[in-house]
């Protein structure tokens, strides 16, 4: 292939991913407001289009049109780069997520490993934002994000190993294909539970939203951000929610199975993902927040041993089954 065709092709893929991300984020924000609204005896957005569907679009436009405020006394380069770094991993992860048997922007052997590694990166942006903002609330929020990282990241990664052992591959497409007979959520129920819980912690979702605990530290790491920089954080948060739920679907809920037709597969995959997202939003509107030390206890003393036990049992069973065969 000529180099410029390859370049154009890559750019086109990127554009599609970009478009998809923005659409997803807008839909998710709208969905969150509606779901939470109806769970709380209210309507959610009602103006601007039928049932307020244009509300988030206008909100996004408003955020983009706002003045770019850069406060005094900040670490300027870190401050400016933090929202971008928050956004890049989310964007990159999308290129490795398969939506249907062959519908994946970049398919390579260890995509699961790569996705998990990229997801861990988003914490750096919290730390950068917290450190550079010249605000004590932000600092506490950023440090909380970093401190939290160790306690969920390890169980999160370990919980996927059970799936990897069963599927015998680190490629997300292969993992889905291995789930033809049974969804891994059934044999790997512990893994699924740990993955989803730690995944919520990974994206600072509600029971674990200590870095932006509004009742304690105002808005946490993004206190000083406004306009499109804040929008980048906001967008990344929702895209990450989608990614975690999509990953959970791919790893444990059979991805696009039982369909193989590309269109049906994509729809099936999205429906499963949105059901999981609904569950996350449900959690968001019911649960109070953990305290940091309690969450660390939970991570280290409960999740980590559980995930190790899960790997041990899975390995044992897989080995025995292989021997019997």
């Amino acid at each position, binding site marked *: 292939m000529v180099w410029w065709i390859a370049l154009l092709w890559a750019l086109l893929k990127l554009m599609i991913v970009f478009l998809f991300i923005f659409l997803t984020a807008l839909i998710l924000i709208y969905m969150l407001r509606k779901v939470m609204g109806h769970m709380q005896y209210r309507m959610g957005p009602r103006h601007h289009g039928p049932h307020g569907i244009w509300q988030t679009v206008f909100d996004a436009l408003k955020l983009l049109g706002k003045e770019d405020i850069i406060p005094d006394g900040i670490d300027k380069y870190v401050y400016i780069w933090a929202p971008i770094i928050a956004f890049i991993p989310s964007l990159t992860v999308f290129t490795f997520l398969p939506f249907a048997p062959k519908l994946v922007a970049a398919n390579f052997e260890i995509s699961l490993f790569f996705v998990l590694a990229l997801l861990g990166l988003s914490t750096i942006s919290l730390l950068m934002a917290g450190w550079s903002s010249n605000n004590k609330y932000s600092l506490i929020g950023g440090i909380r994000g970093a401190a939290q990282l160790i306690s969920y990241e390890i169980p999160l990664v370990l919980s996927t190993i059970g799936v990897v052992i069963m599927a015998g591959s680190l490629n997300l497409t292969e993992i889905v294909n291995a789930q033809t007979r049974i969804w891994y959520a059934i044999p790997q129920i512990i893994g699924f539970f740990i993955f989803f819980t730690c995944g919520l912690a990974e994206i600072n979702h509600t029971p674990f939203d200590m870095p932006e*605990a509004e*009742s*304690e530290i*105002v808005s946490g790491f993004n206190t000083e951000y406004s306009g499109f920089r804040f929008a980048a954080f906001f967008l990344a948060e929702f895209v990450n929610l989608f990614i975690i739920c999509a990953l959970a679907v791919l790893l444990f809920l059979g991805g696009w199975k039982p369909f193989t037709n590309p269109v049906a597969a994509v729809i099936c995959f999205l429906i499963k993902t949105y059901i999981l997202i609904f569950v996350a939003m449900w959690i968001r509107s019911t649960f109070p*927040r*953990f305290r940091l*030390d309690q969450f660390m206890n939970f991570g280290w003393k409960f999740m980590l041993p559980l995930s190790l036990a899960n790997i041990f049992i899975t390995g044992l069973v897989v080995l025995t089954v292989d021997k019997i065969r």
Partner: protein
Amino acid sequence: MKNKIKNEIQDIDEISEINEPGEYPRDYMEINFGPHHPSTHGVFRFIAKLDGEKIIKIEPIIGYLHRGIEKIGENRTYVQFKPLVDRLDYTGAMNNEFGYCLAVEKLMNIEAPLKAQAIRVICAELNRICAHEVFFGAMGLEAGAFTPFLFGFKDREMAIHLMEMLAGGRLTFNYFTIGGVRQDVPAGFFKEAKDYLKQFKKNLAEYHELFSGNEIFMKRTKGIGVISREDAIEWSMSGPTLRASGARFDIRKIEPYSGYDKYDWEVPAGNNGDVYDRYLVRMNEMAQSARIIEQALESLPDGDYQTKVPRIIKPPAGELYLRVEGTKGEVGFYIVSDGTDKPYRIKIRTPSFNHLNALNHVLRNSYIADFPLILGSFDTVMGSVDR
């Protein structure tokens, strides 16, 4: 006991002696909360000294809502001062009016008719439900859950609607008059009130299901902000905050006024004096308030809703202190009358002020994440702290 508190104060002072401005040990971070922090309940401000996430010392700063209500009282007639009383603890306005009107009535040696007394009890208890409903919502917000806030406020709206039927106002009512209440119970009030109570009981069960039994909430609040019974008495706490520490002290029970002794109800109390107990005491108090309202509605006597009082209210010279059980604790009015139509001096005792006093004692060595919960569990209203 006194010595213990004294020692503690000395300890705090020692810390502050080491930490003169400019020479803080590097481990401490000083951080300002308020007056417009999302969870300081209005305009409370404090400067906290932090060791990591632990609070070492706080320095409360109050006065952002000072309106000089007590001083204004000296230049107003007794009737003119009454609307200002509403603005003390604005979540429990009826209870403030209750105390003030009772005090002036006692000074003048008159008594409201039985019907007015019953209506007053209904109003006060409805308002108590409202105030605790706000507490419930705020507690949810402080723990990081948004839903209880809206649940609580939706329910409060219905109680407010009932009081609106009586008084016409929604937050500051100015409904009680010296010698009774301003107007009679309107037609249709009984039915709506009964419907409301039925619905309220259902909702209360729902709150407990949603929030009280939540594992995370219990983890967050149990054993946090513990105040022992002795400490609570030493800090002259009152109301639900005191009762959660195990002292069954309720002015409605020990010094019954306005016919509270006629109704059959209990004083809920806790044992541990932690945030969770204070929460539960308030939740149970709402159920008891509903019980009182039910009985008062059923046994509402016929007759006048106002007694005859002189056009110009001139209590004879003298002084008295009268206290009622407000929504947050003991609301007391110390009125000195010199025989004119204006009070010589009015001193108002509000519970929130005393509760805030203890904040330094309670918040020490707790995490920042606990401070909204502990502050919220006192249910302070800055309007009544600053006056």
